[in-house]
């Protein structure tokens, strides 16, 4: 990155572990730090904000369509029913972040499992798993997730599962490529020669070395999952009893001409959350794939 000061590249210790070196690299990346700080702030506000602010985002707090900055009781104004926008902003992050994180976990878990099996075993297993992956790639993820959430009960768990089921394909391909490459290396062959089981070779020997690109992709998937959750809530597929940023935008969509603020603020919150994750992902990418740093 261009913002890396020149002349600080002198290695401090010759024998530093790759993980520590990557971490040092990451900390030197200003935009990645910005992302980290931003994300920490959003998570902290979402965790501790609701009890501190103490206003129920579903309860009517003032006159409908109060613009921001008019009533000190509702600093960011109210929506079409008179609910406090600020309370929604503070309380709505929990659902979005929780679903975003667990959906990303789900996505990576499915993708890693499928990709590792396909890449490691090869042959028929690879052929079958990759056909299944190709099949899922044909289904537009948001539409598949929509169908799943609509058919089954719209709870936060279901949304996270639906997003995971709809978007694991690229992780699977990535994991497969890494496993295909790594399983041919000598240290894996050596492990096999001394009698390591497949299970051990996959999870203990190969996986740690396949992690760098997977970590980067997992970070970016968190951002995608947040956008997914917001989109589904916007379409009215979220849990109607839990406040979320997407729900706020969806329910004030029709009143956009009466109150620009009720959709603008929650959208900005979604945007900043995804941006923070993207910044972190970019920083990790630079730190973990030093070969690509020149680009």
């Amino acid at each position, binding site marked *: 990155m261009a913002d890396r000061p020149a002349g600080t590249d002198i290695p401090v210790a010759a024998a530093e572990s790759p993980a520590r070196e990557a971490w040092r690299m990451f900390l030197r990346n200003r935009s990645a730090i910005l992302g980290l700080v931003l994300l920490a702030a959003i998570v902290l506000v979402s965790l501790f904000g609701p009890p501190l602010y103490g206003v129920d985002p579903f309860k009517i707090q003032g006159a409908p369509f109060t613009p921001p900055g008019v009533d000190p009781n509702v600093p960011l104004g109210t929506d079409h029913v008179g609910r406090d926008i600020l309370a929604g902003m503070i309380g709505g992050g929990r659902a979005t972040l929780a679903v975003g994180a667990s959906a990303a976990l789900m996505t990576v878990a499915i993708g890693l499992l499928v990709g590792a099996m396909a890449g490691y075993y090869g042959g028929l297993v690879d052929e079958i798993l990759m056909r299944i992956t190709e099949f899922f790639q*044909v289904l537009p993820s948001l539409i598949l997730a929509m169908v799943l959430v609509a058919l089954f009960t719209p709870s936060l768990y279901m949304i996270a599962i639906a997003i995971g089921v709809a978007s694991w394909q690229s992780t699977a391909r990535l994991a497969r490529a890494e496993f295909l490459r790594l399983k041919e290396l000598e240290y894996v062959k050596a492990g096999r020669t001394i009698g390591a089981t497949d299970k051990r070779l996959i999870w203990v020997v190969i996986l740690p070395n396949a992690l760098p690109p997977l970590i980067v992709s997992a970070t970016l998937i968190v951002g995608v999952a947040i956008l997914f959750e917001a989109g589904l809530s916007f379409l009215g597929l979220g849990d109607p009893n839990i406040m979320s940023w997407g729900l706020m935008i969806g329910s004030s*969509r029709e009143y956009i001409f009466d109150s620009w603020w009720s959709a603008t603020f929650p959208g900005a919150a979604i945007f900043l959350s*995804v941006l923070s994750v993207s910044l972190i992902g970019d920083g990790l990418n630079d730190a973990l794939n030093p070969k690509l740093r020149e680009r």
Partner: protein
Amino acid sequence: MPILRLLLERIAYAFIVVTAVLVLNFILVRLAPGDPAEVIAGESGGITEEILAAIRRDYGLDLPIHEQLWIYLGNAIQGDLGYSFYFNSPVVELVVSRMGPTILLILAATVIALFIGTTLGVLASRNPEGLFSNFLTVASLIGYSAPAFWTGLMLIILFAFVVPIFPIAGLYDVTLSVGFFGRALDIAHHLVLPAFTLAIIYIAQYSRLARASMLEVLGSDYIRTARAKGVAERVVFFKHALRNAVLPIITITGLHFGNLLSGAVLVEAVFNWPGLGTLAFDSLLRRDYTTILALLFFSALMVIVANLATDFCYRLADPRIKGKRG
């Protein structure tokens, strides 16, 4: 004729995938909580016992599960994916009638994204550490992180209140009585905001990809050779480098068709664009499952066709892989 054989092979494979989507739809209805007949009828009001009995009879819901699947697939082959009780129409007709506006929206967004994205990325690659390149990196991160339905709403506010130069909803102005050409212009005018909204994410992605891809190609040996033998820099840049740098973008564009469809659902809902997205939105609101499942089927079908098309575009652009499997 290897190309003909390849085409047939691809079509046969596409046929298998289409069947698999139908089987998935069938399984989903059976897995959904509640009576399949009620799932098929949807939650719209006015579903009587007679209608449910008729559904059970038509779908053979009393028969063993594999016979039900045969009935479902048999109907599907004859173009029958069920009836929407909310829209009072066979779902296939319903979905097909809405496909045009969505395809128009997606193609327009793709053209916008390819043109702007590639241009920005190529410009940035001329000076990778320059101000413009760094600006583009930041701008693409922003474009990548903003939810499309929110950007759409923000654009609506902007163009409704501040600079009212683009229409903010619908496919065309019904009050205008103009000829064919006038109508086409009117549709294009209405298309600007939704297509641009949908394109933003892809502009961000393609500009990054184009920049990285150009830098990689410009660093390769044959570019050095071309420069060494005195080929003009402009020719090296545009003819030697650009042509190779766009190949990964073509591949990615083809792969993005499904994502574009997903994005279109949200963007259409924002701009009341009368395509598959608004249909999805309306049928979700009414829990009209038959329509939603038909939508999933047709969007998968569109992705399959788009993949076939990309494959052949790629073959045209890159003569090296003529006849080879991609």
